[in-house]
């Protein structure tokens, strides 16, 4: 049967319609524990100390893990995104857990592993973090002003990358234009909000020296690569499985701190560990789109035909590189796609 011109029935429809799908939170396995994260309530703050005794003492709690507990098991504690660019002016890779400085609301600082999620959340509320709030860089436009507070204490400034795009003689287009219009736009931030949030389950099999990670991801192979790099393992000792995914919309392209933490908890505790993101976590800990400030001019001839567009785009990259500079690149470049546009800069 030709696939072209024919309606092809989907293999997955019937199980999904019967409630027989297999999404990440549908995975159950013997001895499985559940995790909850302690997150930063501050956009920028120092961690002066973490007291986990009260949380650890709660019946049903198996572990309260902080950065120091993870480091012996990591070759590299940072998530390095494989989208290099010569335009970076600084590297800001995400750590598995906060060392001593949290740089966004929702950043994980500790992980509680317990018999079930109810107990894990009880215990997470008992973890005491001694915070010292610092000035945040909350607006990407203001953050570029001289002397603005930096998102990271040690950064010289808040400019992550800078690059031009364009083609054609734009100045000539504006010089010959019958009309020029100038406008500023603020494209506000948005969340993607798949109806299924993120989630990861990991199990370490000591007999076969194999780590298996089930995760609600759009990019299983990238997840495998990052896990191997961070754990210092070969690809034949790690397996990444994508179950049914309840929507992705981009944020599930990204490998997250929670993914490596769940894998590490399974290795450290020798038991399967599950973490399922709740909606509040999705609002604060999952990547979001834009927050872009555009200043643009358009040049047109006497019949309103486009001659050229020029301008600048300031894009909020967030406190870390969770994805490459392809987002602002695509935003700027794709302006030209819908039109016959001879020149852009």
């Amino acid at each position, binding site marked *: 049967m030709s696939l072209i011109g024919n309606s092809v*029935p989907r293999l*997955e*429809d*019937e199980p*999904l*319609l*019967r*409630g*027989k*799908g*297999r*999404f990440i*939170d*549908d995975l*159950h396995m013997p001895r499985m524990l559940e995790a909850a994260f302690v997150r930063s309530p501050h956009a920028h703050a120092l961690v002066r100390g973490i007291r986990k005794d009260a949380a650890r003492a709660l*019946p049903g709690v198996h572990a309260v893990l902080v950065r120091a507990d993870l480091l012996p098991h990591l070759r590299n504690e940072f998530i390095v995104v494989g989208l290099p660019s010569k335009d970076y002016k600084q590297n800001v890779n995400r750590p598995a857990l906060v060392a001593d400085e949290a740089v966004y609301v929702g950043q994980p600082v500790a992980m509680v592993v317990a018999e*079930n999620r*109810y107990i894990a959340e009880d215990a997470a509320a008992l973890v005491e973090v001694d915070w010292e709030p610092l000035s945040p860089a909350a607006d990407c436009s203001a953050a570029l002003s001289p002397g603005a507070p930096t998102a990271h204490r040690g950064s010289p400034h808040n400019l992550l990358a800078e690059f031009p795009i364009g083609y054609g003689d734009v100045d000539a287009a504006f010089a010959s234009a019958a009309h020029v219009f100038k406008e500023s736009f603020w494209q506000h931030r948005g969340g993607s*909000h*798949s*109806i*299924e*949030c993120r989630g990861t389950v990991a199990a370490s099999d000591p007999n076969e020296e194999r780590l298996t990670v089930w995760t609600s991801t759009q990019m299983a192979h990238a997840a495998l690569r990052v896990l191997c790099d961070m754990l210092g393992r070969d690809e034949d000792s790690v397996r990444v499985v994508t179950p*049914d*995914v*309840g*929507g992705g*919309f981009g944020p599930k392209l990204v490998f997250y701190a929670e993914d490596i933490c769940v894998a590490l908890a399974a290795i450290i505790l020798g038991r399967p560990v599950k973490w399922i993101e*709740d*909606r509040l976590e999705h609002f604060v800990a999952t990547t979001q789109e834009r927050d872009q400030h555009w200043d643009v001019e358009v040049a047109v001839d006497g019949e309103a035909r486009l001659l050229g567009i020029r301008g600048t785009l300031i894009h909020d990259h967030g406190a870390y590189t969770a994805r490459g500079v392809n987002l602002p690149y695509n935003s700027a470049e794709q302006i030209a796609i819908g039109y016959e546009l001879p020149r852009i800069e």
Partner: protein
Amino acid sequence: VEESRPISVEVNGIAFRREVSVRTTLADFLRHDLMLTGTHVGCEHGVCGACTVLVNGRSARSCLMLAVQADGESVTTIEGIAPSPTTLHPLQQALKDHHGLQCGFCTPGMVTTLIEFLRDCPKPTERDVRVAISGNLCRCTGYQGIIDAVLRVTSTKDE
């Protein structure tokens, strides 16, 4: 020690007796205790509708209801909708035929919501359908396939 209580609940025609923690939601009880994972949890705030089940035939958010509140009640989940392992409910078949689902995560809540709706309103208009599913969020389909499916199954829209 967490307080727990015994409950008796009928789920998809089968009687269960279980000891449950008093704070366990009905959704978690169905998913974790009975392993009926077709009921999905999307927001735990009663907003997204993915966890909708039928309690004594009435749609209910299983994330906003405690398992102990289902004591003595009859619950129908997505696993209890199809008449047999080889036949889908006409609504399920229509969703399949009219691309009423993509990722399928919201689908169980859509189906249970619409089962109740079609029982009360067997000949709905398109607007009726839109209002009926206004409490169920879907991010993939844009809703049109779901609405087409409902209108075809009620035969109020010509082929």
